[in-house]
Every structure is written in C-alpha cells, then in structure tokens.
C-alpha cells in the first residue's frame, strides 16, 4: 500500500501503530454490561415526558398545564416560564428555545415537560395540557422559503446563512468553454438512527450543583448549554458521558442539551434525580438529520475535456431551526466542485429555514450532498463531450500541484490516482464496464464509479484543539482522560494505542476513564472525524512528555544522563549498557517513593485555517482524505428495484493507526451510504414526518448489504499522528453517486434525485422510453 510514500527511511519502527489491536471497550459490550444511560439510572428517579407541538407554524396563545399538574401521580410540570436562565438550546445560532414560549415552528417542538415517578402517568398527563394555537402560514420547501412573499419563520427571515465562493472569473470561464452543461440534483432527509435513542438523567447535588449523565458526543458543549439554561456557572454543571449507543452527528447538536436541560430544571425544582429518554419516534422527529439539498450545477468544458468554469447553487433545508446548518453548507460549498481542479468557480450556498423538522450534523456534514451532485454531473459532462467518464475524471481531478476550488494547493499527500487504480483493479472495472453494455433481458447489471476528497480538521467549523490528561497510578496503571467521547468508532482506543506506542509500553497499562467535565479539560466537540487526527496529536504530545519524565527517573536510577536512556517494551537502559535495565514498574515505584508526580496535562491546537470569508479563498482545511468507490448494481427493469451487489472502496487515509478499525469505519459508512443511495428517506408531508419509525424508514439490514472490499492507501498527511488522515465520515459519501452512475450504466437513465427507490427508477425508465436520449 503506497510503499513509496508510506514509510520514510528514517521512520522509527512502529510496534503498535499500524497494527489491528483489539479495542478496549469491547469486552463490556459483548457481555451486555450495564454501561448505557438507561442501564444506570439512579434509584427513585423521576421520569419526564415531553409535550410537543401538534401544529406546524403557530403562535402559542396559551399553554394551560393546570389539569396535568393536578393529575394524580404527576410531580412537576415545566414550561418555558420555568426556565431559570436563558430559554435556549442551540448548536450555533441563538434561534431555538428549549421550550417554546411564543411560537412553534415544527410539529414535534417541545412546549412542556411532565415529571412523574411512573412514566406512564407522565405520558397520560401529556394529553391534559391544553394548548391554544393561532396558525400561521407555513412553508415546507426551501425553494419557496427563499421567495420574498414566503412566511417568515424567524424574525430575520428564512435564510439562516448565505455563503459565497469566488475563484477566478466564471463568466470568462464559460466564454472559453465549448460546451455548457447544466443539471439539478436533489437529496433527501436522511435519518442517522443511532440505535440508542437520546437519553440522560440529572442528579441534583446538595451544594446546588447538578450532575448530568447521558448519551452524547460533546460534554463541554452540553455543559455550556445546561449552565445557560440553569443560570449556573459552568463548574456547577458536571457532565459525564455514559457509554453511547451510536451517534453519527445529532448527539453533538442540541438533543443532549434538550434532554438534560429539561431534566435539570425538574431536578433542581424537585430535588430528585430526573431522567428523560426519547422514544424512537421522538428521536427521529426531534434530533437533527442530514439536510436535503437542491443543487444546481452549470459547468463549462472544452472539447478536449478540460473544465473551464463551474457554477453551483446549493440550497439546504435546515428545517425550523438552524442547528449546525450554517457549517454544513460551508463544507458543502467548499466541496461543491467535487475533487476537480477548475480555474473559475462561482458557488453560493444557502441554509434555509422551513417548517420541517431540524437538519444538522450527520456523518459527512454536507460532503455527501455535494459529491452526489458533482459526481453525477461529471458523468453528464463526459457524455456530452463524448469522453469516457473515467478519462474525464482523471483529466480534471486534483493531483499534487493543483488548486482546489478554494485555491488551496494540493501537496504530495494526495493518493487519489492510486485510489482509482486500486478500485479499478479490484472491481475488474474494464471487463465489466464493457461486458454489461451487451445485456438483454429484464435484469440489467451496471458498474459505476465516484471519487472524492474530504477536508480534514474543523477548518471553518471552529477552533481545533484537544486536551489530554495522563496520570500514572501507583500500580502502574496509566489513566488516560479526555473529553473526546467514544460512540462506536473505536477512535478513543486509537488514542491509547498512540500513547502506548510513544511510551514504548504495552497497551495493557492504559485505562481510559469516562469523559467527565470535572476532571477533563475541554477537548472541543467529538465531531468531524477529529479524534485520531487532532486528538491523536494531543495523545502523542502528552505521552511524549510523560515518557520523558519516566526516562528522567530511570536515568537517575541507572546513574546516567537522560539523553542516554533508551526504552523498549517497558524497560529502560543506558544506550551503552543495555544489560543494566530498570522496569517500568520499578520507575513508577521509585517516582512514588520520591513523591514525584507522574501526570501530564496538555492541549494540542491545530494550526488555524485562514481564508477570505467573502470569496472562500485560502486554506480551508489542513489536509485531505481522498477516495474512490465502484458500485455494481442489478436493476430490475420491471419493478425498478435496485440491488447493490458489490462495493469496492479505496481511501487514502495517510496512515492507518488501527487497520481493523479503519475497515470497520469503511464498511459501516459504506452501508449507511448504500442506504442513502437506494432506500433511506425521512418523508415529510406538510411538515409532518410520515415514517418516524423503523418499519417505514428503511435502514439496511444484513440482507441488504453488498459485498464490500476495503482498500487502504497511505499517503501521509501533515496533520494527524504518523501521517494519519480522517476516515470516520468519508465512507458515507461515495456509495450514492457510484450507485446512481451504475444504474445509468445498467439501464441508461440518470437519476438526479436520491434515494433510487423502485418508484423513482421506474418513473425514470418510463420517461426514457417516452423521450429517448439522443
């Protein structure tokens, strides 16, 4: 795998990094240990049920909770009036109340919460809350919402954010073009479906502070949010992450703050521990999903196949509240050309309010939508100029020395071409591409490809820092503490693997403590696949300092200077006298005898990304992950059903810290991407979610998964430890466009909208028969 780039001649031999070691949290999980929020509820806990808006866009004339309050068994009812601090639960813009007070903006918006020791009683009392609504005109399509006569959902209008990207002169670029190709692409609401619905509980402490435990991605974001709601200083709000049963994005947005905010108000009012767990339906309606986008593309291309201009207009439906929509459209904007070098680019992205449920963070964060559009469009461009789409891609794609749409120079760490070569070979591309054109019959096979790049680091999304704390106990256990959370990826195990590598110690000495704001420093949010890339650097740095301290003690014990000390697998010796050594445990013992502290606390901060916000030109990310995916499909031309038979996915991930974990991310993300491509769609009708359950919202099961071949390509980057790049998010990006391109190859129709459900495929086939493509 990219040997020529993978190992520098002076690179030290790695013992643990690059090895598929078993992750640390597995044993508890396979034994079904009680580690998740609802498994560890305190005794005598109050349960909350949320009263939600049944109207889509209305003024709240009155909320009468008296009947509910008097219902036998109800202990407490709270409304907006009971919020002691600021009635706000937001991710970015101050647009969303914790509990609606004057207005509701979507069906399902929380208005009140009812507490009882019996959750059934609380649920019964929900219907006793009398709410008077005065309906307002509502708007459900972002295209309608940006019209001047649209009802205003928020005081500042319906555009939460508009961003611009300007590179070169797009008019000039179109003048140079021999062809101009236009297209419009649409994507859907995709529901993240973490298997554990949102849950949390709050324990009121005797000193007036609160302890909040829950399923979440970002404890310090939760702490800030709860402190605001309660009007308490942050240090009086202790937040602990329980084991988290999947997250994929929404658990970094508002939901953990909603859950723990409501519970905290009740806990403080009653002095009782209070829990709130969403049902699956509440979770699917309440939390943020992938933004539906409408993307209009216009590309200028010369006869020789070179792209001269690219214009993109991206409109994202963020629902009733912005959540992280403004940042999602940022990432979407920066990736809107796909991984191609185009001299003249003009892109605009809009984050638009509607009266639909909220969209926000979900694995990929704007990347899947942009790549679906771009990777569909390049096929159409290639078709128009009569060029093989693969050749067209290779002619225009990013290589070292190229400039991205944001005019960032691509350096040597670009393995895109190798990713393509690898997937072509492993998918037997050329044979199949040729063979499948000769089919007859009702079932047709096709093979398609899509390629990508994915900016690493938070970049425009915030300050990129991670704090790590490591302390050695008397028995030699190294306690590793960080507020980065584990929610399934295994990345936190990777942090310990890195620390063990740096310290030349076996992994068994390391123990990961649960993220807790009481003893961790802020590590920023656990999002954007940043645990290994940025957290790994923090781990490397802190482990390096602790290792140095151990070497200093060992040097004193061995009577030499620290620079002479070498270490290997838990033993320290002077370079010239390897026969005299001291063990790790001896060094720890000696430190404790001398009263020396064996702990290091430090924060790694990634370099800042600098770019012009007016033109989006500059450094938007610190490095890129690259990828290529082929999809093989079978299309049933009678039923419209698409079956995905095989996905070959190659990613340039810089350096795989734990190859097995990387493959786990690729396989899991691929299957979510296949779902995005052919079956997953949260359907809204007039603002009401029609399928908020797992019977009507289809998530791929074991019967739906294609054969998957994962290939790792390693062109080390500059940000992550050992050259690592991010891999959590990228695998969800390409399956959808690769599948849609394969459908086109199989039956000759272009689906400009996903998912490729049987009805969409049938309709497209029918339209093609009616209007055959020239």
């Amino acid at each position: 795998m990219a040997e020529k780039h993978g190992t520098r001649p002076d690179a030290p031999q790695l013992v643990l990094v690059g090895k598929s070691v078993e992750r640390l949290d597995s044993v508890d999980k396979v034994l079904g240990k009680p580690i998740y929020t609802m498994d560890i509820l305190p005794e005598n806990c109050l349960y909350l049920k949320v009263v939600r808006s049944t109207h889509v866009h209305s003024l709240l004339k009155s909320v009468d909770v008296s009947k509910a309050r008097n219902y036998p068994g109800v202990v407490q009812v709270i409304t907006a009036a009971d919020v002691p601090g600021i009635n706000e639960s937001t991710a970015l813009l101050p647009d969303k109340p914790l509990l609606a007070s004057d207005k509701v903006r979507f069906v399902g918006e929380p208005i009140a919460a009812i507490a009882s020791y019996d959750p059934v009683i609380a649920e019964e009392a929900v219907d006793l809350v009398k709410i008077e609504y005065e309906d307002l005109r509502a708007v459900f399509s972002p295209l309608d919402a940006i019209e001047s006569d649209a009802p205003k959902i928020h005081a500042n209008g319906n555009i939460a954010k508009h961003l611009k990207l300007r590179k070169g002169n797009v008019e000039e670029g179109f003048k140079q073009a021999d062809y101009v190709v236009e297209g419009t692409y649409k994507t859907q609401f995709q529901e993240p479906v973490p298997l554990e619905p949102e849950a949390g509980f709050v324990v009121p402490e005797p000193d007036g502070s609160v302890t909040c435990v829950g399923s979440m991605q970002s404890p310090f974001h939760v702490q800030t949010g709860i402190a605001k709601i309660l009007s308490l200083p942050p240090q009086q709000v202790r937040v602990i992450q329980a084991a988290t049963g999947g997250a994929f994005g929404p658990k970094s947005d508002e939901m953990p703050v909603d859950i723990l905010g409501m519970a905290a108000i009740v806990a403080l009012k009653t002095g009782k521990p209070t829990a709130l767990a969403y049902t699956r339906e509440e979770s699917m309606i309440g939390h943020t999903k992938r933004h539906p986008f409408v993307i209009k593309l216009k590309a200028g291309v010369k006869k020789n196949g070179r792209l001269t201009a690219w214009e993109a207009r991206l409109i994202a439906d963020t629902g009733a509240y912005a959540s992280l929509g403004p940042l999602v459209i940022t990432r979407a904007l920066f990736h809107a050309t796909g991984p191609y070098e185009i001299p003249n680019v003009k892109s605009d992205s809009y984050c638009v309010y509607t009266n639909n449920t909220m969209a926000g963070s979900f694995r990929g964060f704007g990347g899947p939508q942009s790549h679906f559009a771009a990777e569909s469009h390049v096929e159409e461009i290639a078709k128009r100029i009569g060029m093989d789409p693969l050749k067209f891609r290779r002619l225009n794609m990013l290589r070292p020395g190229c400039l991205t749409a944001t005019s960032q120079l691509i350096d040597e760490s670009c393995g895109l071409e190798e990713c393509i070569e690898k997937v072509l070979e492993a998918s037997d591309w050329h044979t199949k591409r040729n063979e499948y054109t000769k089919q007859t019959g009702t079932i047709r096979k096709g093979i398609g490809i899509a390629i990508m790049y994915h900016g690493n680091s938070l970049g425009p999304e915030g300050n990129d820092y991670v704090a790590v704390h490591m302390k050695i106990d008397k028995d030699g256990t190294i306690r590793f503490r960080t507020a980065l959370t584990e929610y399934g990826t295994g990345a936190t195990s990777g942090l310990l693997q890195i620390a063990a590598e740096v310290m030349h110690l076996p992994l068994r000495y390391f123990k990961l403590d649960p993220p807790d704001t009481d003893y961790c420093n802020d590590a920023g949010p656990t999002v954007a696949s940043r645990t290994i890339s940025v957290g790994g650097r923090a781990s490397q740095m802190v482990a390096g300092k602790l290792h140095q301290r151990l070497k200093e003690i060992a040097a004193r014990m061995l009577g030499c200077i620290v620079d002479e000390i070498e270490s290997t697998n838990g033993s320290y010796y002077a370079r010239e006298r390897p026969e005299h050594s001291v063990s790790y445990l001896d060094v720890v013992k000696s430190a404790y005898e001398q009263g020396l502290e064996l702990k290091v606390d430090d924060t790694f901060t990634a370099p800042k990304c600098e770019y012009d916000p007016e033109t989006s030109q500059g450094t938007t990310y610190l490095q890129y992950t690259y990828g290529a995916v082929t999809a093989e499909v079978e299309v049933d031309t009678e039923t419209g059903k698409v079956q995905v038979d095989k996905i070959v996915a190659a990613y340039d991930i810089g350096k795989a810290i734990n190859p097995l974990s990387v493959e786990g991310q690729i396989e899991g993300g691929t299957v979510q991407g296949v779902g995005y491509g052919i079956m997953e769609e949260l359907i809204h009708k007039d603002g009401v979610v029609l399928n908020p359950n797992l019977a009507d919202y289809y998530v791929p099961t074991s019967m739906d998964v294609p054969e998957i071949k994962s290939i790792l390509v390693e062109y080390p980057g500059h940000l992550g430890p050992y050259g690592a790049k991010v891999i959590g998010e990228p695998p969800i990006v390409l399956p959808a466009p690769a599948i849609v391109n394969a459908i086109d190859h199989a039956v000759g129709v272009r689906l400009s909208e996903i998912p490729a459900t049987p009805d969409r495929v049938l309709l497209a086939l029918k339209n093609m028969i009616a209007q055959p493509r020239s």
Partner: protein
Amino acid sequence: MSRHLLKFNVNGKDHALVVESHERLLDVLRDRLGLKGTKEGCSTGDCGICAVLMDGKLVNSCLVIAIQARNKKITTIEAIGTSEQLHPLQREFIKWNASQCGFCIPAMILASKNLLDHKPSPTDEEIKQATRGIICRCTGYHSMINAVRAAALEMKKQ
C-alpha cells in the same frame, strides 16, 4: 388490568413474580430482574435489539407480554460468557471488531448463538438470515458475519 403469577426460568434460575397483564417481558427482565443487557431500541418490534431467547426461539422482548413467558426458559446475554471466560462468539466479535457502539450486540450474539445451536456450520447466507431482524447501524454487518463464521469453527474444535 389483572395480576398474574409469572413462573419462569431466566438464565437457568427459576423466578416467580407477580406481573400485570400489560407488562412487557423487556421491562420485567430489565427492571424487575435487573438484567440490563437487553436493550430497548424502538419498542415497536422493528429494530430487534431487545431480542432474547424464549424456549430456544429468538423473540423481540418488547413485543412479548410478560405472562407469555409463563413456564418458559428465557436466555439473555447475561447467561452468555463471563469476563474470565468469554463465549467463542464474544471472543470472535471482539477479534473481528464486530462491536462498535455495542448497543445491538447482546441481540446479535443471542441470535447468532441460537443459529449455532441449531446449525453448527452455517453458511454466510444463513448467518444473514438469522440476524436479519436486528439492525446494526455501525458495522455494515460484514465483521459480524465473519465473527459468527469464525466462532462456528472454534466451537467445532472444542
């Protein structure tokens, strides 16, 4: 609402509990017997992660009324392996990285165990069929299929 005496066997131990007619097996296991390994994911029988074995059949415990378990044998994840001695399925799930967030794992392991109890050498297709009712959102299923296949081989050796 009526009350019933539920006599049943859970993980090899006999229990006699008074249950209400509407109580779910899931709640009896989690809240009355403290067996928290069985998870709740949807409460409508769609995700499968509350699955337990009832007389050797995989059932969604959120859809089983507690009294339906009368005189039956229930097996939950707590009966499968210990930290000192993991079941081969548990060992292989760890080895193949088949557990990511872990929330579906108790159900996946019970479904797989049930399969191996009846079919010691399943094909991949049979493994997929046996676990089709349980959603895993993290792994993409391949690592699980690999783990079950490997565990079957291990168990035959023993």
